């Protein structure tokens, strides 16, 4: 169990307020094992950044550090203008309410029903019961799982659990979403369903998002598709289309960032490792 200790929070420096997330020379090691080494990147408002890297490259650690579930050994982390690593755990609880996180294995509360899981944050905030019911149904409708409202997580398939976790993350309309390998271990059809939901969230609500994955096809689908609200489905961006998708890529290798840029820059990267990775 880790016990978080902090010093007094310092005011956010100029320029951090208009960014959703800033990592400034962040490093962390567990015992002798360096997990992140001098990592720096920024996530702009409304942007979706996809974190790529092989297993154990430190991707999930970045997500946990964004909301202060882990503290860096060195460097500064800013979330919505707040200096995360100087905040007390008590202060972080308020900040985390502006963030939605989807965990790799969903992390649904297994003793609670789907309704209670999705409504968890609203129940904690003391929202009126009728309002909770309305918003839970709205969130479950978004992930097309309204019929599972009274079921327990154990009664759902892996893909359905992942969708319930997305509903739980988006119910309070957070300013930023963190996805930890949302399609890991799922079959291609279910993966596409999940990716369509993420694209829908991105294009309908314009939420900033940081997505960790090691499945390259999913990230290319996200970068090359948009959500058509009139037809209620994800469609490929036609050539010469003026549609701009605010998606960027970040590639991690052994705890270091070796690429930060657009999909076009990624596929044209001269770096040997990246070329091999995306091949």
């Amino acid at each position, binding site marked *: 169990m880790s*016990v978080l200790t902090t010093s007094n929070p310092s005011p956010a420096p100029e320029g951090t307020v208009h960014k959703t997330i800033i990592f400034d020379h962040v490093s962390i090691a567990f015992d002798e094992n360096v997990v992140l080494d001098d990592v720096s990147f920024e996530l702009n408002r409304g942007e979706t950044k996809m974190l790529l890297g092989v297993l154990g490259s430190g991707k999930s650690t970045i997500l946990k550090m964004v909301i202060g579930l882990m503290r860096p050994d060195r460097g500064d982390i800013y979330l919505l203008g707040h200096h995360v690593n100087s905040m007390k755990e008590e202060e972080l609880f308020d900040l985390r309410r502006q963030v939605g996180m989807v965990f790799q294995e969903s992390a649904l509360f297994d003793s609670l029903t789907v309704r209670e899981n999705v409504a968890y944050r609203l129940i904690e905030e003391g929202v009126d019961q009728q309002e909770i019911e309305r918003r839970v149904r709205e969130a479950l409708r978004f992930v097309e799982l309204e019929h599972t409202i009274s079921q327990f997580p154990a009664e759902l398939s892996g893909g359905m659990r992942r969708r319930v976790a997305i509903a739980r993350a988006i119910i309070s309309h957070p300013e930023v979403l963190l996805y930890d390998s949302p399609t890991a271990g799922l079959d291609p059809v279910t993966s596409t369903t999940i990716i369509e939901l993420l694209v829908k969230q991105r294009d309908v609500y314009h939420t900033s998002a940081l997505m960790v994955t090691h499945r390259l096809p999913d990230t290319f689908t996200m970068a090359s598709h948009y959500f058509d609200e009139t037809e209620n489905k994800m469609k490929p961006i036609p050539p010469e289309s003026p549609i701009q998708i605010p998606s960027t890529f970040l590639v991690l290798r052994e705890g270091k960032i070796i690429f930060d840029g657009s999909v076009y820059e990624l596929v044209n990267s001269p770096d040997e490792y990246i070329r091999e990775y995306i091949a």
Partner: protein
Amino acid sequence: MALRSPTEIVQEYLSAIQDYALLSGQAVANLFRRPRYLNDTLMQADSIGVGSLPVVIMTGFSIGAVLALQSSNTLQRFGSLSLTGQLVSLSMVRELGPVLTGMMVAGRNSSGIASELGSMKVTEQIDAMRALGTDPTKKLVTPRVISGTFMLFILTIIGDIVGLAGGWSVARLVLNLDSAQYWQTAWQSLEFPDVFMGLTKPLLFGFVVATIGCYYGLSAKGGTQGVGRATTQAVVAADVLIVIVDFFYTKLLMALMHVH
């Protein structure tokens, strides 16, 4: 398995004691902070209190009965069989009631708490809770500590009464003692320091049972195997700590209240 240096092992123990002390301190500090989870506290009180009732009643009755049976031989030798009630009463109220009830509740609930929280830890539900803006020590630890402390107090009183009843059943049916005499000596032998000692110990033991269960649960790592390990360690640690706390607390009270 790699050998570790004694320094590393000592450091690990000290760090565990520090974490346990911090968690316990936080659980107590949360009593004065919002939000308070009344529903969770009542659910835990039901689980710990009502759930442990059968085992406490069975153990209490058996111990009271055995105590009367075992002591009868010695008492008879000195012609003091009529003091059976006094012996059962003092032993149950001052020592055996609180300790055995504490150990029974530890066996059932420290393990239960550790396995429940341990499963939540290894499946990232604790992290999910923190990510959703909830303090797990407020939501999970404090309700269990309040319920554990309060319910062990109640369970010990029940255990004491049932133990006295167990002693009476042997006194009446096996030793052919007069019921009124048994209850009279049992009641009259008790003085304020005995009752005070017997009723304050379960408060400490209940705190130990709940905090140890929570500590091992929240420290669990390494999948289902880790949860199993945490569960076993929680029961062992709670039982050992109950015995240690019992010794020092008894010594302290005996010195303060001049009890012999």
